């Protein structure tokens, strides 16, 4: 096993990896930008080194600095978390060359799966179903029109290097093919520096269901069941759960075997995720892509299986064989994850960096707080807005939703706005409760239903505001009158300033 692991990341995922190392009795090295000296991952690690100015291009993405710290501190492995350098094959190779173990899959797997076209070709050879469509890229408008006839409508025009919904167009008839081709191409070039696009069938009521796989360096690969990730806002997952309501045992086995086959094409030797698009209408599933990292949403799988994926990932990187056989993998109950972002759901989800002045974290049975927050933390403006994840387990989906709502009701974050109120409202939504949704649900349907919701506590809100005003006015009056007792709270120069006014 490793003696010392460097965590090349920040925030909640860095804390997660440090916790796993601590439990394995491995020493940890944190790296941090100048904006992150006070971050939780710096405080809980055994060692910590500053690697540069706030922008990640000058710190968390600088391979030389990270390798240098690893060597200086004597770390024998690097955990990349997600994002930053996690799916960069050059970094994985660089680690190998420097004699430091990259805690992740082999660089070949990262490279093949990092590209939509090469990954589709690779998995199709193993019989993994793809969305019916093209296996090459489009070469001209005429080419697009020819293929559109073969595929039929509605169809999807997609950027080869795509992600996050950019360079994607739904096309419902022949008359729109040419314009969609041009605009998708231009957006793809702008967004990814690559204008290659292709077309495939549009999957109706699309749901995003993914299979967790785990492989070791001895050729063993197993699947750890599915996660349902269809609750997305602007193509970003916001709530994930395991298992999925539309997957039954037979479908689970077929999807799991397809995922293992996909992983086998690249001798996959770490934790990874095979993403599928599933038709909510026909329950057909098709390969989307493979993520060669620990996912943000890995805890829901951990909760239903009782397996620590982050620790297993470290063990595997150290060359140890899988701790589990396929038949050991059994689902107990249901788990839900809510991603808590520094965004204001009551104000167009605007980002809200700033200081967390009050924090009360939910607790009690089967409530898991995966956080990078603490009271007093200044949330910097430079990075992704994810603050923490609330993960909840329950005996079944209904109990799990009730518990998630209960846990959310206990959460208090003051000083900055977060998406906690949004999650409360989703947990109360009848379509969500029924499991009746697809990837468009939040952006299209939920927004309207949410606007129209009842607000039972209006008068309580008005009462609170009235008392707040009264107390504020009274405190001001007393300050001006200069009562010694009240004056304690304010400074002398402020006091004189107020008196003069």
């Amino acid at each position, binding site marked *: 096993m490793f003696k010392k692991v460097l965590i090349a990341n920040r925030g909640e995922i860095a804390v997660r990896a440090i916790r796993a190392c601590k439990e394995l009795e491995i020493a940890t090295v944190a790296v941090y930008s100048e904006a992150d000296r006070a971050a939780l991952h710096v405080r809980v690690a055994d060692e910590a080194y500053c690697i540069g100015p706030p922008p990640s291009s000058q710190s968390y993405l600088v391979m030389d600095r990270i390798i240098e710290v690893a060597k200086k501190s004597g770390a024998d492995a690097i955990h990349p978390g997600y994002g930053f350098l996690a799916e960069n094959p050059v970094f994985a190779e660089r680690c190998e060359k420097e004699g430091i173990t990259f805690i992740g899959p082999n660089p070949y797997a990262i490279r093949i799966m990092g590209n939509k076209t090469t990954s589709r070709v690779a998995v199709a050879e193993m019989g993994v179903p793809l969305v019916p469509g093209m296996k090459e890229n489009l070469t001209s408008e005429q080419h697009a029109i020819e293929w559109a006839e073969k595929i039929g409508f509605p169809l999807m025009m997609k950027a080869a290097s795509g992600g996050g919904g950019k360079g994607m167009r739904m096309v419902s008839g022949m008359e729109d093919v040419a314009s969609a081709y041009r605009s998708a191409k231009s957006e793809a070039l702008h967004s990814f520096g690559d204008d290659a696009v292709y077309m495939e069938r549009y999957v109706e009521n699309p749901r995003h269901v993914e299979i967790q796989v785990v492989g070791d360096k001895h050729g063993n690969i197993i699947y750890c069941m599915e996660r349902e990730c269809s609750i997305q806002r602007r193509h970003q997952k916001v709530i994930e759960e395991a298992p999925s309501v539309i997957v039954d045992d037979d479908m689970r086995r077929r999807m799991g075997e397809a995922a293992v086959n996909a992983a086998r094409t690249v001798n996959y030797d770490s934790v990874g995720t095979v993403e599928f698009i599933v038709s909510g209408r026909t329950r057909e599933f098709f390969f989307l892509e493979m993520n060669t990292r620990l996912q943000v949403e890995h805890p829901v799988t951990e909760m239903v299986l009782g397996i620590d994926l982050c620790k297993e990932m470290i063990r595997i990187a150290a060359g140890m064989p899988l701790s589990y056989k396929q038949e050991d993998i059994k689902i107990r109950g249901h788990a839900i994850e809510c991603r808590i972002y520094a*965004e204001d759901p009551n104000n167009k989800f605007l980002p809200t*960096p700033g200081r967390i002045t009050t924090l009360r974290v939910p607790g009690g049975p089967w409530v898991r707080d995966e956080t990078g927050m603490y009271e007093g933390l200044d949330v910097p*403006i430079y990075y992704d807005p994810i603050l923490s994840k609330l993960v909840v387990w329950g005996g079944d989906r209904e109990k799990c939703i009730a518990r998630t709502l209960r846990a959310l009701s206990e959460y208090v974050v003051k000083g900055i706005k977060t998406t906690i*109120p949004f999650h409360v409202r989703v947990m109360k939504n009848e379509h969500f409760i029924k499991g009746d949704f697809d990837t468009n649900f939040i952006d299209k349907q939920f927004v309207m239903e949410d606007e129209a919701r009842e607000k039972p506590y209006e008068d309580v*809100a008005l009462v*609170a*505001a009235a008392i*707040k*005003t009264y107390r504020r006015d009274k405190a001001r009056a007393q300050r001006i009158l200069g009562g010694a007792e009240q004056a304690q709270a304010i400074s002398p120069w402020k006091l004189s300033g107020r008196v003069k006014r």
Partner: protein
Amino acid sequence: MPYITTYKGEEIKTRVEEVRPNFYRVVLGEREYEVDFLEPQKNLYSLIIGGKSYEVDVDAPEGSDVYGVGILGDHFEVEVVEEKKKKLAAKLAIGVSGRQDMKSPMAGNVWKLLVKEGDRVTAGEVLLILEAMKMENEIKSPIDGTVTSVAAKEGVPVAAGDPLCVVEPPEEG
């Protein structure tokens, strides 16, 4: 003290009386509430009203009479103003147009500045783009008019509430 509470455009006569320490009587129009009050954490109230217990999150930016109130996932924007001040404000009211002091709604970096002093803009036109937490946020002009001053500089960070620019409506007549 008599207040006017404004919620969803409706004005409600409001009175607050401190019956004893941490116990208030609040009259909202025709409705009257007796409130057992506690503030166990700053701006997080524990209210017991007729036996019902509520946790209420109250935010009031310094110098503003508009409160953001949060109760179990719901958000309420409430304005509470002294009655006499409200009457004064009504007299001075000049409508939704007028000079627009554009302030930054959040901390961030000015990623792109799309206007300069003297530019004519139309309502809804993007004035600048702020970047924070890897997201781009467009700041749009609320009115037709002319940019009369620009405080924001491209690439320079701003705090929430910092002035960005001023848009003035065309002169009347």
